[in-house]
């Protein structure tokens, strides 16, 4: 087909650079940490807000605003990780382990605080941190399972191709 134009030789290299930039780990790690820290802070603030008796209206509004801001950071970071800086199977496994560790430490902190002090918000915060830990464990196990399936399929395909090449 004589009318077809071949791509410029440097174009593929440009897109390979684009791919490497898109795949950089830094932004993914930052957004995973943002989601975790924002979740923990939101739980702490919401627990204080919901358990402190007879808060002045202004303080209640301030707590509500801080809770809303924390939730919006969680939503934003999850959106980035699902639509812009998408995580691949290996990265999901690593993120899952980080999330389980973070949530475990956070839960431990909450239960220690609840047992050692009479802070009203500590037990609700512990309950919510356990819910967060459960979600993190679920996501981690799902990521491990998906990763294992992909590895098994990759190995099978490589064997098939190697067999066909002989």
């Amino acid at each position, binding site marked *: *087909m*004589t*009318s*077809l*134009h*071949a*791509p*410029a030789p440097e*174009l*593929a290299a*440009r*897109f*390979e650079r*684009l*791919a*490497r930039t*898109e*795949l950089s780990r830094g932004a993914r790690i930052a957004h995973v940490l943002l989601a975790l820290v924002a979740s923990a802070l939101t739980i702490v603030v919401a627990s204080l807000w919901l358990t402190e008796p007879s808060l002045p209206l202004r303080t209640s509004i301030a707590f509500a605003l801080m809770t809303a801001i924390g939730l919006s950071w969680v939503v934003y970071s999850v959106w980035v990780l699902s*639509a*812009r800086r*998408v*995580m*691949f*199977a*290996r*990265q999901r496994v690593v993120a899952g382990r980080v999330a389980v560790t973070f949530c475990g430490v956070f839960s431990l902190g909450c239960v220690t605080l609840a047992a050692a002090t009479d802070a009203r918000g500590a037990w609700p915060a512990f309950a919510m941190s356990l819910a967060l830990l459960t979600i993190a464990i679920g996501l981690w196990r799902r990521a491990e399972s998906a*990763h294992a399936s*992909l*590895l098994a*399929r*990759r190995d099978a*395909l*490589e064997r*098939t*191709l190697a067999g*066909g090449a002989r």
Partner: protein
Amino acid sequence: MSHPDHADESSRIADELLAIRCQLGEPDAFDALIARWHRPLWLYVRRMTGHDQEAEDLLQEIWLRVIRGIAKLRDGSRLRGWLFGIARRVLMDRLRRRYVAPPLDDLDAVDVAADVDPIDREADLAALDLALDTLPLAERDLLTLFYLRDLSLAELADALSVPVGTVKSRLFRARNLLRAAIQERNDR
């Protein structure tokens, strides 16, 4: 010389392997994906736009969507249709902004075989190359993917997000238009 069916199967397996390596997050896999599919996608987009610069812009958008979307590709063996589907959507988004496109009037799954006429393929390709630019955008798009990029009916169905029967009916109509365009050229 390897059998064409075997070559197709090997190509399908290689595509699936590449898709899975990308889904695992192997950086080298993305370089391999671009090396394998850059030229076919370029040729499709370049033909549809007719401009190098516009094709480059569109291809950048296509690769961004591929990198961001490949983790969600469920069946890696359908990589080819999925890639051209993304390319087509990016292209149509751009063209839609530029033109008021006529709606695609889908003929329902008329049971028409796409390969009903045993037209000599070489002659068909030569005539296609000359007459393609005179066709409406939808038919040009379909015939470019089918003849010049060699997508199968199933891959076309993936790329266009329509059932295979609809692809057949659209191909039937596009081939008739192409035939008329070639006839018109011959009558001049």
